[in-house]
């Protein structure tokens, strides 16, 4: 099956920043992303868990699949948002079906 190279960007970010990140992505022309829930985690700022929480606490994971040539635009947009915030940005090489979608 015909595959096309792409980048898979995963941004783990604080839930209160989610809307700001997705808007920044949209403004930068990134039209597709998927938001995955996160149960808990650990990092330099300690361990946390979503269990029993009431507020918009914790983190979410935003996954974007994009054409390799658009990676820098995306990273610039994402970085502007996450810069001062805790969060992790990971990029992996990937292959996609139906490249016309990205």
């Amino acid at each position: 099956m015909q595959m096309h190279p792409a980048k898979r960007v995963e941004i783990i970010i604080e839930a209160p920043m989610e809307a700001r990140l997705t808007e920044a992505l949209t403004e930068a022309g990134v039209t597709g992303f998927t938001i995955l829930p996160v149960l808990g985690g650990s990092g330099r700022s300690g361990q946390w868990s979503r269990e029993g929480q009431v507020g918009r606490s914790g983190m979410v994971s935003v996954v974007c699949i994009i054409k390799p040539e658009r990676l820098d635009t995306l990273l610039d947009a994402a970085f502007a948002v996450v810069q001062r915030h805790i969060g992790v940005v990971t990029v992996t090489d990937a292959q996609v079906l139906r490249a016309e979608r990205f």
Partner: protein
Amino acid sequence: MDFFALAAQNLMTPMILCFALGLAAALARSDLTVPEAMAKAMSLYLLFAIGFKGGVSVASHGLDASLGLSLLAGVILSFALPFIAYALLRAMTQLSALDAAAVSAHYGSISIVTFVTATTVLAGRGIEAEGYMVAVAAAMEAPAIVSALWLVARSGAGPRMDARLWHEILLNGSIVLLVGSFLIGALTGDGGMTRIESFIVSPFQGVLCLFLLDMGLVAGRGMRGAEGNLGFGALAFGVLMPMIGAAFGLGAALILGLSAGGAALMMTLAASASYIAVPAAMRVALPEANPSVYLTLSLGVTFPFNLVIGIPTYVAIALAVIKG
């Protein structure tokens, strides 16, 4: 001795004991947990019920100038308390200006569960209070954030504050639901109450028990994570500040001429510290401030203090001062 009997009686309610159970379970590392969706469901229920009841009470007792004045007093308190909190924190603790400002925002704002618990204590003792105090609670959520950000801006740290964040704070879910259900209660009055009474009145205290169990679990987990993070000064602040807040709340209540019940609620609001709306706002506006400091203080120290000691004391003082 009478005081101790009263204190013991206050401690022996299912609500306080549920909180203690949650705390103990978390500290003992039990895997008892409340699902996030259930915790959110209970909080929506409590907000809806308390707002609606407040609205119905306003509908039946009518409105007068005192609602407007009480709202104004609440807003002023919420603006003012962070300055006191900030000064105290800088004097009593090693916290950075940024962390101190972030903490102070929490103490100017309010904890709706503390408020709900106080209404339940009043109801249990047959003490009436102004129904519109729910609206005052809603009005006090946000102003403290402004003061805190002003304190930070003054010190040059540059909070991230924009129209967007204003919108988020002023229209955050709990304010909208509280105010909305207050208006719905006010509009539908006793007729509306009759329809949904067996949903929002009868099971209310039971739901509050399970919610406080969850609060105990969350607070206990936070304490475990924060062990030794907070110095003695910060802990002392967590107990001192609610008393100062309560004193200001009492002053405001006297000026406004509130009933004893209303005064107890105003004291509770001023004494309580936010742990839902303000933390989320701080993560956006002051991401460099350390969340474990403000969460531990507000949820791990001040919340239990108010629940166990604060509320009964505020009620007793309000009754003594205003009935007397």
